[in-house]
């Protein structure tokens, strides 16, 4: 068995930023495992602009953003194995992988960084009745067909779900000559960024039907039409609102699910809200030496935040290796983060103040649209943050920054994050 200091699973934006940050923090023996034939992950097919406003203060396309990190990893001389599929990860950090060159092999890793990203919710998980004809794709599959393979999957398109990839594909397919008839969204609000609604739908006069869904699919060999209907407040179809819309393509943009099969194999504890690992302040999972970052941890809307999080994971993994042999965190003071009253989850879930960097970013999402409400943080019952927010929405990740000093001074117990009326 080979042994490596740090093994990064996944060579997308999270894996690349984590590997580079670990290198900067002094680690040298780093290996990135990537199943695709190139680095960059999903950014390779996200050819639209709008990436990097926070990181580089300019608007880049996906391939450009990825390119900058690929260059850094190459310059560092970090080892990369492409076309390499990781099959198993054990609690003791033994990575089992395979590729054409070496067949099946095992690596004993000093630290592992999980950066496998996420995948789209498929049709099978949506319970749409009807036949199973050709012409139904997830938005990301259509994106790959158009942007990487150069095929237009259809000419008359209906999109279900107003996630960002669906909105982006509405514009992309319109520019390539397809007719996008409408976007239907089950919820009474869109999960996509405002900017995408304006620039991808409004610009081309594509209607967005909120509180609508696809209630039936028509066509045996090829999709011929879908039935669109309004839903009531419980998400149930109102039969009198059904209308038939002819189309040859249905794109699904109905949410992303972190890809945690490997994490589960390693017995990593998973948060049922995010479907990603439960982590502490160091982005370390419930298994020692296994760290997580990016969309495998929780689904992000901006790659800039993935980069920040992954850089932290890289630094923490390097620090973990340097302090090895020291007593572990188990005996230290511990705070539990409790999301309440409109906050769905937080990352991290636990904080050991002694292990924190000077400032810690806590990321979270809210469960509904809140206008003019207050965001409050309580430390041991004392309110330490009270901030008026013009708007908070499920589609936009929020964050608060905690200070190490404040937590060290406090006892140990709970940190509550909640939305309040005043």
């Amino acid at each position: 068995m080979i042994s490596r200091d740090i093994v990064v699973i996944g060579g997308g934006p999270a894996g690349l930023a984590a590997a580079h940050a670990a290198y900067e923090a002094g680690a040298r023996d780093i290996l990135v495992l990537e199943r695709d034939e190139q680095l960059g992950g999903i950014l390779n097919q996200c050819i639209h602009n709008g990436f990097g406003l926070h990181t580089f203060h300019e608007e880049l396309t996906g391939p450009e953003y990825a390119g900058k990190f690929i260059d850094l990893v190459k310059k560092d001389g970090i080892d990369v194995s492409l076309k390499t599929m990781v099959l198993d990860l054990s609690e003791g950090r033994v990575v089992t992988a395979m590729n054409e060159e070496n067949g099946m092999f095992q690596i004993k890793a000093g630290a592992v960084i999980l950066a496998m990203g996420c995948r789209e919710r498929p049709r099978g998980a949506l319970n749409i009745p009807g036949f199973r004809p050709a012409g139904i794709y997830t938005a990301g599959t259509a994106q790959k067909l158009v942007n990487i393979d150069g095929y237009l999957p259809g000419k008359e398109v209906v999109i279900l779900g107003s996630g960002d990839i669906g909105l982006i594909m509405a514009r992309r397919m319109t520019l390539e000559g397809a007719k996008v008839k409408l976007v239907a969204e089950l919820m009474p609000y869109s999960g996509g960024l405002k900017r995408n609604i304006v620039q991808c739908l409004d610009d081309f006069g594509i209607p967005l039907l909120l509180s609508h869904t696809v209630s039936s699919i028509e066509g045996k060999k090829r999709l011929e039409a879908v039935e669109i209907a309004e839903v009531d407040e419980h998400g149930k179809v109102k039969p009198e609102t059904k209308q038939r819309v002819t189309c040859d393509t249905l794109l699904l943009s109905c949410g992303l699910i972190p890809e945690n099969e490997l994490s589960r194999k390693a017995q990593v504890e998973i948060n049922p809200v995010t479907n990603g690992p439960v982590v502490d302040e160091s982005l370390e999972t419930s298994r020692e030496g296994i760290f997580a970052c990016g969309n495998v941890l929780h689904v992000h809307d901006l790659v800039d935040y993935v980069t920040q999080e992954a850089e932290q994971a890289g630094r923490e993994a390097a620090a973990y290796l340097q302090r090895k042999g020291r007593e572990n965190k188990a005996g230290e003071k511990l705070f539990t983060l409790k999301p309440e009253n409109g906050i769905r989850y937080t990352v991290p879930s636990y904080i050991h103040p002694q292990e924190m960097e000077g400032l810690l970013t806590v990321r979270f999402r809210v469960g509904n649209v809140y206008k003019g409400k207050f965001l409050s943080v309580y430390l041991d019952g004392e309110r330490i943050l009270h901030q008026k927010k013009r708007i908070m929405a499920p589609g936009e990740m929020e964050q608060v920054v905690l200070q190490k000093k404040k937590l060290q001074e406090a006892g140990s117990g709970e940190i509550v994050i909640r939305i309040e009326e005043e």
Partner: protein
Amino acid sequence: MEERILTCIGCPQGCQLKIKLDGKKVLGMEGNNCKVGEKYGAKEVVSPERTVTSTVRLDSRRLRRLPVRTKTDIPKDKMAECMKELNCLEAHVPVHRGDIILKDVAGTGVDVIATRDAEE
């Protein structure tokens, strides 16, 4: 006098901007909660601009398409013409991120550049 209604993209709030204008002159704006909306609205009604991103054919052994973009924003009403010109184009390897693929697209004075490397 004309009235236009736009959604501001400055933040998730998405204020509905009601803009009164006379030809190309903004006479007044309602609905914006901050200065970002004012600036966005004024630009958007007079000369809306967008970056166009697409792909062009590529003679590479590994990649079928080369992703490209306009180097800066171009007028919104030139987008269709820009796409037309890009669809007639083939790029050649080796090509690097930032290389100019097409000069002065659709008479806008703006170049189209490659957004990734392709060596072979």
